[in-house]
């Protein structure tokens, strides 16, 4: 058997931080980036005698995740303790859900394929160990300890790294749209572990799986899966067996290295959390059907609608729906300016370039949807070519966004006067005789060069349509 014929089997375990103001079992803030150990209390520090109190907002968001992932949201679930000794885990057990999770048996469609979701359960996050501040000691930051997570466990339904990335992209979009989580990988509010194994063919039994951790981008997930495929294929091709283990992705070398063996299963000694009664959603005032009814438009439906309603190209829709604020900005502007395709063109290039790409959120960008609509209307009236329009856009942005004020001294309007345009065209034909000749003898591509020369002479003000008509009249009568 050669490496090309091995089929990868991939499963994903995604930890998502629920978007709540406070932690899962205490009232401490979940805000990211605070000074170490400033967002802690006796409960999340695991001090002796303290007890957990569930945060119902976190429970509600977990149920919401179940709704958007087409899961059965279980009216009754329970918490369990998962035991392991680690310095970032204050109680040396994690409150999680073992055999009765809040959500089970769902799916997510991505890239035209349905991926099954086994379960999504609530659990508390651990703290963070900091090894690089003190050469002699490791430090512990417990701000993150107790932050609410849902762990979303897929079935091993992925057969290619692309599928895994498509799923993750859609998962992120769906959870963000529903307000379940921010899903910021940089801030750790979305973390992903990948299980990869190889098998001989589509009907062969699953091989030994390897878990890869430390993935901090979707690109990393993709690279890690491809690396594991070739690494495991090489092992199998050499007649050896794949070792069950946890490996760590190395972003710089795009490889994985062994962290620890899984040959001896670790025993977490799960047992029901005696400090918490079973979690009952209805009793807690969480109405799953109401959550379903209150859902905002989800990405798949939104993409469909944008295609239909505005007649956009699929690629533009994809860009416009990557971030909710972009979609909202677009729709606000499209309500004021009729040519949605033109607007989409501006948004995906100049608007994002002058705002988000320069670190300015669209919400605080000086070109509000209203101003943009006014700007585009102004441009339509002037009829200038695109590069001149772009210049003026820059001018408006640097003047703070007020279109009328910024452009009041700009006198240039398109030159539509036939006599003036004919004079310019004749001048260009004279100066670029060989090119004009090429066009005359049938080379269509030569026209754009000739047009460009006219635009240059007119400083972009010549009306394109009229100019090409004159060239046609002169050279191909």
């Amino acid at each position, binding site marked *: 058997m050669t490496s090309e014929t091995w089929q990868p089997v991939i499963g994903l375990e995604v930890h998502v931080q629920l978007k709540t103001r406070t932690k899962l079992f205490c009232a401490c803030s979940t805000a990211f980036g605070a000074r170490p150990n400033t967002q802690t209390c006796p409960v999340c520090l695991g*001090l002796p005698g303290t007890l957990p*109190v569930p945060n119902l907002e976190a429970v509600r968001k977990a149920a919401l995740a179940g709704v958007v992932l087409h899961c059965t949201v279980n009216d009754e679930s329970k918490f369990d303790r998962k035991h392991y000794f680690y310095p970032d885990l204050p109680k040396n057990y994690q409150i999680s859900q073992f055999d009765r999770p809040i959500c089970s048996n769902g799916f997510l469609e991505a890239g035209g394929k349905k991926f099954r979701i086994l379960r999504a359960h609530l659990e508390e996050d651990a703290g963070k160990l900091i090894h690089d501040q003190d050469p002699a000691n490791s430090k512990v930051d417990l701000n993150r300890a107790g932050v609410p997570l849902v762990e979303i466990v897929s079935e091993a339904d992925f057969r290619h790294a692309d599928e895994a990335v498509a799923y993750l992209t859609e998962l992120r979009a769906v959870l963000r749209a529903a307000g379940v989580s921010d899903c910021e990988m940089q801030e750790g509010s979305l973390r992903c572990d990948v299980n990869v194994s190889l098998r001989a063919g589509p009907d062969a039994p699953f091989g030994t799986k390897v878990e890869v951790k430390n993935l901090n981008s979707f690109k990393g997930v993709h690279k890690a899966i491809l690396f594991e495929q070739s690494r495991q294929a090489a092992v199998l091709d050499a007649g050896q067996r794949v070792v069950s283990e946890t490996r760590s992705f190395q972003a710089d070398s795009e490889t994985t290295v062994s962290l620890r063996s899984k040959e001896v299963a670790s025993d977490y*000694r799960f*047992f029901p959390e005696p*400090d918490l*009664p079973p979690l009952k959603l209805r009793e807690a005032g969480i109405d799953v059907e109401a959550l379903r009814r209150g859902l905002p438009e989800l990405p798949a439906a939104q993409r469909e609608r944008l295609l239909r309603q505005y007649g956009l190209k699929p690629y533009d829709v994809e860009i416009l729906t990557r971030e909710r604020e972009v979609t909202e900005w677009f729709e606000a502007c499209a309500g004021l300016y009729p040519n949605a395709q033109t607007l989409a063109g501006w948004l995906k290039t100049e608007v994002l370039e002058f705002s988000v790409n320069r670190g300015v959120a669209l919400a605080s960008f000086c070109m509000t949807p209203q101003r943009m609509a006014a700007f585009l209307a102004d441009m339509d009236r002037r009829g200038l070519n695109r590069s001149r329009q772009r210049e003026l856009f820059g001018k408006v942005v640097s003047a703070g966004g007020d279109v009328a004020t910024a452009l009041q001294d700009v006198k240039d309007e398109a030159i539509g006067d036939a006599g003036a345009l004919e004079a310019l065209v004749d001048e260009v034909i004279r100066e670029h005789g060989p090119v004009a000749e090429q066009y005359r003898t049938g080379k269509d591509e030569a026209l754009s060069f000739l047009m460009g020369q006219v635009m240059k002479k007119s400083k972009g003000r010549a009306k394109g349509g009229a100019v090409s008509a004159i060239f046609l009249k002169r050279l191909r009568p």
Partner: protein
Amino acid sequence: MPTSLTAVQIRDKVTTGELTARAVAEAHLAKIEAEDGKIHAFLHVMKEEALAAADAVDAKRKAGGKLGPLAGVPVAIKDNLCTKGVPTTCASRILEGWRPPYDATVIERLRAADAVLIGKTNLDEFAMGSSTENSAFGPTRNPHDLTRTPGGSSGGSAAAVAAGFAPLALGSDTGGSIRQPAACCGVVGMKPTYGAVSRYGLIAFASSLDQVGPFSRNVEDAWELLKVLSGKDRDSRDQTSYPAAFAGWGPLNRDLPLGGVRIGMPKEYLGDGLDPECRAAVDAARRAFEGRGATIVEVSLPNTAQGIPTYYLVATVEAASNLARYDATHFGVRKGDAAHSRGAGFGPEVKRRIALGTFASSAGYSDAYYVKALKARRLILNDFDEAFRRCDVILCPTAPTPAFKLGEKSADPIQMYLSDVYTVGANLAGIPGIAIPWGTSKGRLPLGVQLLGPAQQEDRLFAVARALEGAR
């Protein structure tokens, strides 16, 4: 002498101004200073705090403020209850020097009731034991006979009340840790229904069994203290407590007519292993009930024999988990890695129970031990439900023997575990139980009996206990 007054008497005298809270506190502190050297009920005497709290009560009275239901009453606190800024050790080296940054709910409630916290009392390490000999800081001795143990694990609290160091004390009862030392020391000790009192700030031994309860020298004082303890928890910080079901208790019914009250006697609690003098005390209590017109019925708790093994599986599995946090990262003297620090910080009984609990919850063994124990627990609960269809209150022994000698059982853990044979049932079933003194042995040791009632029926249980006390 203020040290011979009951809690209710002190409260009333302080409220009327006949006695100052300061005089009460000083008298108790003086007695502790004079006599606790030989008893060792306290691990930490809160002298300054107690005087300051007493002065505050007196000042409040002078200013015309309304005093709480325990105004000026000294209360001794088992040292597994968190007291803000005051050392809280669980009698363990691993918590030595730790001062909690917060008060347990029951401590908050005592302070709000104008009680005066007088000190932290000795216990078996992490409440694991029946003699208070497992304290890392030395045993407590029984005030009735200094060669004997006060029972345990709340031995310090029981001894403090018996010795007159405080009219009231708090204990915790996981398998009998209030009732058995109460019996050994000749005082009243009571375990409430599971969920009646918030566990927030009680350092967990076995979460599904632990319950905080009162010690006192008479039934009425225990009732007054329980009413303070069982109120609402701020922010519902213990999700397993439900104080609303226990609200609205009035004064103790001191004159419950016993005519028609059915007293059940479980035959399984009166057989082999019960000391003849303890058996005689139960018989005497039965006659007292009969004399007052109660009906005696024989009941059966057929799964009694499963009580101790079930208890030692459920309790140790939860304990192994609850004690995992003591890894010397946050608490305790660090001796190398977490494992070595735990080895140095925990005493032998705690280690034995962590080992047992870890084993019983391990993959491959959990079904055979822990899961089976949960099933047995259900059967034991059913036994009590069945028995309470036939009777209103169960009368039975509290401990199989009177107070035993120091060292007598420490070499044999099983013998020690059997001290709880009549008490673990109430914890496994979550029902309330009260130990009350009943006579004295030939060796002049206290004897006592235990009354058990259905869940949430503390008011009736106390009224029956008071009636029995009145017949003494």
